[in-house]
């Protein structure tokens, strides 16, 4: 795709523009708060305080962050290959099957550090499987990946509803959830990590899958920028025609990229199932797969951007819960608005402020302006 804009220095491209987009999204959210009849500043205070005010709050914030790192990375990997994977929600949901199977089979016999790796493999396997089908359909049958992944979200919801009803629910139980896991299916909290900073994690479910998320972020960086597969994926993403000409096997790369993406989304299931609830509940994903889209867009599909973006949304989720305690008229649905606005301004309207910013910056420094004139055109 042609870029009809002059090149900007790195700090503006990766720092200023995302920040401006984010600021606009928050300004409009503030307007909504005003319409509802509350003070945006007070809401902002409750949000920040609710997210970082206490060790326990930070623990919750980081718990949500963990989830969003996984789903954000999932969307980002597919983006690099030029694929828009809206199916993170369904892939994470199906990934739960892998976690539950591992936990139900081994939680009474094995310690958590042996169950955890099995659960990771299971989650990634089922998530990857659920993403592989749309990937294969796109690669071999030419069906549009966006539509198929949307459809697969709904199919996953129905399938999991069925499985929880007929298979996973213990006999005689009314609520749609599995039995609670024994010690082997419970991940340890990261209280030691928090206590290094003199904070207490309290009841927050901040657990070891956070470290796995960071590891996954590093893994994605290595994959995308340091391996041949990653190079081929990026080539596909930039120009499918060039990739074909270079002899890259298009179908194979699409399927692999989708499987990695789905695997990452599936691993998200570890955090709520083994880290918080110790059982699988109906609809445990709770929109995290869609938050991944916002996170990936804001983080510009780079792990170094995704982690802070995930932290921001972790803050919104935890802080948003606190706001709804303090200001009853602002329920947690406020986060959904903010999420939508971030997707709108950091995604669809990402170039809206670019001409103005370019003019200001390039107007300020003549050197870059000359460079832009020669490079741009």
């Amino acid at each position, binding site marked *: 795709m042609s870029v009809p804009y002059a090149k900007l220095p790195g700090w503006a491209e990766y720092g200023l523009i995302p920040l401006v987009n984010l600021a606009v999204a928050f300004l409009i959210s503030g307007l909504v708060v005003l319409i509802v009849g509350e003070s945006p500043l007070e809401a902002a205070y409750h949000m920040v305080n609710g997210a970082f005010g206490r060790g326990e709050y930070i623990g919750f914030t980081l718990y949500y962050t963990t989830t969003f790192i996984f789903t954000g990375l999932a969307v980002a990997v597919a983006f690099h290959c030029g694929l828009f994977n809206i199916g993170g929600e369904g892939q994470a949901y199906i990934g739960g099957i892998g976690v539950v199977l591992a936990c139900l089979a081994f939680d009474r016999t094995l310690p958590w550090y042996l169950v955890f790796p099995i659960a990771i493999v299971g989650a990634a396997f089922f998530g990857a499987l659920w993403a592989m089908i749309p990937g294969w359909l796109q690669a071999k049958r030419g069906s549009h990946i966006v539509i198929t992944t949307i459809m697969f979200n*709904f199919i996953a919801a129905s399938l999991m509803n069925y499985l929880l009803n007929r298979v996973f629910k213990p006999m005689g139980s009314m609520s749609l959830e599995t039995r609670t896991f024994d010690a082997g299916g419970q991940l340890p909290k990261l209280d030691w990590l928090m206590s290094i900073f003199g904070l207490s994690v309290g009841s927050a479910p901040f657990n070891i899958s956070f470290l796995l998320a960071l590891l996954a972020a590093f893994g994605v960086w290595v994959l995308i920028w340091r391996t041949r597969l990653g190079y081929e994926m990026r080539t596909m993403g930039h120009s499918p025609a060039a990739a074909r000409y270079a002899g890259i096997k298009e179908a194979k790369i699409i399927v692999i990229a989708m499987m990695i993406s789905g695997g990452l989304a599936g691993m998200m299931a570890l955090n709520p199932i083994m880290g918080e609830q110790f059982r699988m509940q109906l609809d445990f994903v709770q929109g995290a797969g869609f938050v991944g889209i916002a996170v990936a867009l804001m983080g510009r599909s780079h792990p170094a951007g995704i982690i802070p973006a995930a932290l921001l949304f972790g803050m919104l989720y935890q802080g948003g819960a606190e706001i709804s305690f303090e200001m009853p008229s602002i329920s947690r649905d406020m986060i*959904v608005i903010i999420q*939508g606005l971030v997707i709108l301004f950091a995604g*669809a309207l990402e170039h809206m402020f670019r001409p103005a910013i370019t003019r200001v910056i390039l107007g300020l420094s003549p050197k870059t302006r000359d460079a832009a004139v020669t490079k741009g055109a």
Partner: protein
Amino acid sequence: MDVFQVFIELAQSTVRLSTPLILAALAGLFTERAGIFDIGLEGKMLGAAFAAGCVAYISQSVYMGLLAAVLVSVLLSLVHGYASITQRGSQIVSGVAINFVVAGSTVILGEAWFRQGGRTPALSADGRFGTVTLPFADAVRDVPILGPLYSGLLSGHSPLTYLAFLMVPASWWILYRTRFGLRLRAVGENPGAVDTAGISVIWLRYRAVICCGILCGVAGAYLSLAAGAGFTKGMTAGKGYIALAALIFAKWRPKNILFACLLFGFLDAFAIRYQGYAFPLIGKVPVQLMQALPYILTVILLAGFIGKAIPPKAGGVPYVKER
């Protein structure tokens, strides 16, 4: 129970459940035929349903409610249009964004204005669309076969339902028999050619997006003013996506849209009626399978196993006038 009676009842609820799908799928037809993917149908419908619920309650007028629904939906469409036509942003990202913004703000605003947990107050008869009784419906009720067909199936729907079914041939006529329709379809296949002919691609696409907004607005108004009595949180419940599925299933053609929507509406009606019913030979069909069937069918169709769905050629690609 009498088989014929069951058939009439199933057919009638099929018609009721298909109405919003038909309107929304036709809405999608206009934008997608003009080369703009729209996965924001769900959000526009939801926003329209909310606006209709609010305004119809406050003004006690069903027509003001309908008007508000159309206005809000067109406004949301214009946001989508601005992002994807003027700013040349990703159409899919923009659609996703609209769905979220609407899903959140309908609840927040509804709660702030009415304090009923995100719903709007129940509407009285004045604020709702009543049902239309076709002439002689009562008189012919006792005529065998034809009587129930006429008075049970054809008569007794809301005016918006008749409008939805009329919109199918109307959309066909607009798209295939008017100059505007020809140009609209051309802009979805080859915008460069349309531009060369001296017709503004941008303005055409904006008009397509506005058409989509109007139809989505009616679809939303149907949900809160005709099917229900007021707005409830998340009341579209995935209908926008089902409509999108129907649009693809129909291979972007008006006549097929009617059948696809009726099929999906029928599946829904069937699932509601036969929940937990044991069929001969197959036994109990899980209700979840019935719910997932429209999506599964669409995936199979998209994969080209039942015919081939070929989308408009320039769909999803922003138009750049000069390179």
